[in-house]
């Protein structure tokens, strides 16, 4: 239990399903929780366009329906990130990660600008294809060790996890979190509305930090 990013403070068991808090995961969980609360109470930033050659500027108008949808998606993204931080089950982790991918697409897809729509669509294609290595990794975990519980994997009594399973898991998280695809991500960030768009970045950062812990088990 020592290589589990610290000794768990608390383990909540539901049969096979379990949730645990270690010093590492509780930090990430609190970060996600804080930011979700910020999203809940803050108002969207209005993007400013400056006309060059003068001091004229315009702010973009964000409709209430668009704001509501994006706020909902950002909160859902925060909840999915929180779930991914505290779950102690490999398959649940992959499901939460896939949900972070969907909600990230949703946060930007409400914007009606063609550039943003196109970028969100391309991002969605990558996120959808990333579910293949993600779920395949989790399935190989179960096939090789016979368990999906991170607590059991951390005891070291189970057979070693094959390298390919870990590689698949990381590849899937890269696809959902879009780390190496910053070109598409920058295009997405042309969408106005500050707190919601930052949720995309924060959630991908969090699932990356968590997957590092996950692949170090077993």
């Amino acid at each position: 239990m020592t290589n589990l990013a610290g000794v768990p403070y608390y383990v909540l068991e539901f049969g096979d399903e379990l949730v645990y808090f270690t010093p590492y995961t509780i930090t990430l969980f609190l970060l996600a929780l804080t930011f979700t609360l910020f999203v809940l109470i803050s108002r969207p930033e209005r993007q400013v366009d400056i006309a060059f050659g003068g001091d004229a500027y315009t702010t973009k108008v964000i409709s209430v329906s668009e704001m509501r949808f994006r706020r909902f998606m950002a909160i859902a993204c925060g909840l999915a990130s929180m779930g991914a931080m505290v779950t102690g089950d490999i398959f649940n982790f992959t499901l939460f990660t896939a949900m972070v991918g969907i909600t990230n697409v949703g946060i930007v897809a409400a914007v009606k600008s063609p550039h943003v729509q196109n970028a969100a669509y391309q991002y969605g294609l990558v996120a959808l294809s990333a579910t293949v290595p993600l779920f395949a990794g989790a399935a190989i975990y179960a096939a090789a060790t016979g368990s999906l519980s991170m607590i059991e994997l951390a005891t070291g009594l189970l057979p070693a996890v094959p390298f390919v399973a870990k590689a698949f898991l990381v590849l899937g998280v890269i696809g959902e979190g879009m780390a190496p695809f910053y070109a598409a991500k920058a295009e997405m960030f042309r969408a106005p509305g500050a707190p919601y768009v930052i949720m995309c970045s924060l959630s991908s950062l969090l699932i990356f930090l968590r997957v590092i812990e996950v692949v170090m088990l077993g």
Partner: protein
Amino acid sequence: MWGQYSYGLLVVLVAGVIAFFALAIETDDLHRFLLLDLVEITALGVIALLGTDLAEALILPGLTVGIAEQLALSQIYLTKERILQNPVKGLNIEVIAKADAPLIISMFLVVYGLLLSGFTGGGVAGLGLVFFFMSRGYREDLNLLEMASGISWALWIFAFFCFMFLPQFWFIALMCAAVGIVLKVTVKMSLVGTMWGNGND
């Protein structure tokens, strides 16, 4: 056992590589979207190779997440290509709309689905209703269907709590879960059937 699994894994991964290759050389957005459906199936194949009841329990959420992503992406595609305004018509085939055959076939499917119960039964019964609604161009107030769906979902969740906290009443919980899921899936699929056409917005 391990040998068989490895061969199966090899076959599925080769299929995955072929699907990803097709995805990489395709440039049309709609075709890439359709190919993704094929790619998704290889993920389910890897899970299915586990060959235990755990695999069945894992395929269901995997499939649901995949379908949710595809629904979201298809909506983005419609908005992106600005084809939301085009009205969609149901199956306006005169013979199907007038004949008794859709009624008989869908009644058979619904009864058979109710006998099967559970997720599969819900799928079969829902398919019967979808076929019926699509062939008749049926218009209905969707609120009632949505309420039935919600109540059956609550029944299903209640059954889960019963399994967790009162395991001695497992039989009642099993029945509640079976009835809840059959209603839920049936209603969900019949909602899909009535979503054709443009009168429901």
